[in-house]
């Protein structure tokens, strides 16, 4: 049987960033950097956290792999399965519903032919409904990557979708 060394490795810039983050905590408390490192990892490796990737991070931080799985599966921002290039996280909590987000979610479902939690066949879009993102006065809204898209309506949404499609094909 062939043993394969883990091929996953962060970019040098990310490693430098991780080093900077770990130094923000006292010695021996490097686990505190875990949540932020998982964000960096997810961003760098296709928007989701594979087991291999989490094991690599456990190794980096000198903690047990289960400690990473426990954390990664607790927080809703981490994707533990492959997702599309563009992950649309639409807020569907009360205040956004008061200003009509449910209609917009229906519109996305119909336009892209996917339900929340699904990815389009071409691997371009994933639709996620999420709980309150702290933009209640600017709803309906959704987050894509680090960007908040606020005060959405159907027209804005259609434009956004076509721009995103162009940018990512």
């Amino acid at each position, binding site marked *: 049987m062939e043993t394969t060394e883990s091929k996953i490795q962060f970019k040098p810039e990310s490693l430098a960033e991780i080093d900077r983050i770990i130094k*923000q905590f006292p010695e021996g408390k490097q686990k505190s950097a875990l949540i932020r490192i998982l964000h960096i990892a997810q961003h760098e490796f296709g928007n989701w956290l594979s087991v291999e990737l989490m094991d690599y991070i456990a190794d980096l931080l000198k903690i047990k792999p289960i400690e990473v799985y426990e954390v990664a599966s607790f927080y809703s921002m981490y994707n533990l399965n492959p997702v599309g290039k563009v992950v649309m996280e639409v807020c569907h909590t009360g205040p956004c*519903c008061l200003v009509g987000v449910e209609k917009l979610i229906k519109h996305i479902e119909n336009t892209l032919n996917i339900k929340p939690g699904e990815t389009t066949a071409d691997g371009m879009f994933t639709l996620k409904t999420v709980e*309150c993102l702290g*933009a*209640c006065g600017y709803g309906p809204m959704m987050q894509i990557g*680090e960007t908040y898209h606020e005060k959405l309506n159907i027209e804005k949404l259609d434009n956004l979708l076509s721009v995103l499609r162009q940018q990512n094909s």
Partner: protein
Amino acid sequence: MGRKILLEKTDIENIHTYNVYRKEGGYSAVEKALKKMTPDEVVEEVKKSGLRGRGGAGFPAGMKWSFIAKPEGVPRYLLCNADESEPGTFKDRFLMEKIPHLLIEGMILSSYALGCNTSYIYIRGEYMWILRILEKALAEARQHGWLGKNILNSGYNLEIYVSPGAGAYICGEETALIESLEGKRGNPRMKPPFPAVKGLWQSPTVVNNVETLSSVVSIVNIGGDEYAKIGLGKSTGTKLISACGNIRKPGVYEIELGLSVEEFLYSDEYCGGINDGKRLKACIPGGSSVPVLPHYLVTKTAKGEQRLMTYESLSDGGFATGSMLGSGGFIVFDEDQCIVRNTWNFSRFYHHESCGQCSPCREGTGWMDKVLHRIEYGKGNMRDIDLLVSISKNIEGNTICPLGDAAAWPVASAIRHFREEFEWHISEPVKCLEKNYGLVKEPILEV
């Protein structure tokens, strides 16, 4: 025009940069404190100011500070709670985005008062862009000598770092926040020990909200006594209110505590009234966890007195006819909104956000979500209404952290004030799917 303290300068161009902030008098409070005041004197000013925690609980900040244990040779930590996740609340985000140096200045003052040499801002992971704004501002502050070693030659050292969460409402609870900052699951801790004795890495720790810490700047600048003159009674100072829902002008407003709810809701300076000329149906004045008020109890209390934006007036009438100021998330419902649907929505939220550690919350939130979902979709039974009340009672007060209460109150209050609407949903399963129940009838109040 009410008095502005926190948002006074947010309209100034480039106030988010160090140079502009400094030119506008920024960091003068740090100069005053580090050069002329002892840490205890800063604590004293905050006590005198009557400032209450702006995260939702409203606990006096100065008193919280005075609880911090000071064992020899053990570091103490100040943590800024920027996990803002209570539905309806988006004020801290506004403050950090517009004027990040105000928070940093407040944190320097507070860290100095508490004797902390390392402080952290724990910010919700979704606010990653604000984390970058804060890191940039922190770098500027460090570059200009407001952070680092021997600040202003006072011998005081301080570093402030920002650390993100990753999507978990529960991390706004202070012990869950500490767990999360330690790189763990956001499971709230059993209290005691309280964070003031054993918090971050088992060291004495104080956790304060963004707005609370930012308010310390003006308290040091004008003095605690002066600050206490702003506001009304025990509700001192100003408060950021984030208004949303069916109003003409949603947004973040700074009010002097004591403003009438009526003025806040209907005047053009603030919410501008209900959108599209509709009528008010209900209002949740302090974020999704606090009891909902039916329209006839929003601007007036059950006794017929004018309802004010203060901790006391909003809770007047207790849970029977009052609510709470909470985090200042002011959610307004117009006549076309369905209370059952909204109650189900919030229940789903708490179900989703329960950490799952203790049984009443883990099982109870999911149960309420499922029952409310059935009612909303026309499959309810009349007995479900009392069942919901009973579940909420079994959760309330019996959980490790306040999330249980936060999940129970909205359900209990919605049924208390809008029972007929729940009943209508059950007795008219077809109609309820397409039509709104309408405005709740105004009952005759027993005073």
